[in-house]
């Protein structure tokens, strides 16, 4: 049973850029009522907010449920107190990463790929069509993709604000 409320999480959440105002929430349930992720997972945006406000968000960072958000922004659009639950949860995700909690595996790959290639995938995919034809960007005659000209510089610049390789 959790006994101490951790206000450092709330402080850390406030430091992330965004419109989050967890303190304003009066738990009307509107966000969770409309949330697509809530319909198919145990994700509950109102709970993310109140736990953050109460200093009890450690458990949701630990369980990883915060990554279930579908980024539809309905909660931000309709929240009557401009809490912007989406911004609260996005901030929680940032805080979780800075505390060493791992995001879903796919995101680790995508995040590291940006550091190496500037994009979430290292190279264009080869697609198999419904007629079993194999197509690639090249075979379709599409031009080469432009990457950041100086990848080393790019990596260095983004590290300035804490964007580092995830393991």
């Amino acid at each position: 049973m959790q006994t101490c409320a951790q206000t450092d999480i709330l402080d850390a959440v406030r430091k992330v850029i965004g419109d989050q105002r967890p303190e304003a929430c009066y738990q009307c349930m509107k966000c969770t009522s409309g949330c697509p992720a809530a319909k198919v997972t145990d994700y509950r945006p109102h709970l993310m907010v109140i736990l953050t406000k109460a200093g009890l968000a450690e458990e949701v960072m630990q369980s990883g449920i915060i990554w279930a958000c579908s980024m539809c922004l309905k909660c931000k659009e309709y929240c009557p107190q401009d809490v912007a639950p989406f911004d609260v949860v996005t901030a929680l995700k940032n805080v979780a990463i800075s505390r060493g909690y791992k995001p879903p595996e796919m995101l680790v790959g995508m995040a590291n790929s940006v550091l190496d290639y500037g994009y979430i995938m290292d190279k264009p995919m080869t697609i198999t069509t419904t007629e079993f034809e194999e197509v690639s960007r090249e075979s379709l005659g599409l031009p080469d993709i432009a990457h950041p000209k100086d990848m080393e510089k790019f990596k260095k610049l983004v590290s300035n604000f804490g964007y580092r390789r995830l393991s």
Partner: protein
Amino acid sequence: MYIFLGCTTPMKQYAYELSLRAVFPRLGIEIVDMPDSNCCGTPLMGVNRFYNVYAPARLMAIAEAGGLDIVAPCNGCHLALSEAAFMLREKKNLLEQVNALLKEEGLKYTGKVKVYHPVEVLYGLVGVEKISSAISYKLPPLKFACHPGCHLVRPSHIGRPEQRDGKLKLEALTEAIGLQTRDHPEKYECCGAAMIPYSTDAAIKTVAMRIKKFVEGGFDGVTTLCPYCFDMIDGKQDAAKTITGDRSLSIPTFYYTQLLGLAMGISERELGLNLNMSPVGSVLEKLRR
């Protein structure tokens, strides 16, 4: 204008890129590839929120250096660029931080560059009337559902290309080429794409709900202008059937630019119509001249 393709379109959703490149020049919109480009950061907002401000600023600064505006075909990219522009306008210290980093690459963000989504280019810059006259034939009045996608509609306070009220621009465009549109419940709901990293199952169940409404509505097809939404609606129908057990979850799905290109007489190959995963064959037959 520059075309900022993002990640998903150039690496996976070739049909979108093909149909855009086919249609835009023929409507008088010259698109230029960006000389230097990077991921906009939307899928990684949870990993590093600041990247999602810096990266769009970098892209807009590159465009400004080249003297052109940007069209961003992906809803997520368009939102990243629009929201970054909004925040950099509102918060001076953020602007300073970002420009200090951009300076290292000889770039500067001033907010001059305009960012468009293809729906805005087609509806606003080209116009429904010009489109109606640019097509070689009107498509038969099949009933199509328009799926704008979350990021084209929200968050409304920064201004989005579509509004959650009245007719969609996408619907007006769809009607301009001869198709019929109709309202359907859950029109503004999410395709579930962003849930894939957390749980493919959850994401599929979500898009299955959308597809269900298309099927129940008796639509002949669905059209959208977002690579993520298309990837889900067009690409995950088999998975949806398997996971939900509902065999009715099947509907021909097209990029609007593919349909527009068809009406303009452009070849199906050039429009990437062989790349759609949903069963478009029977509808294509009806749509052909």
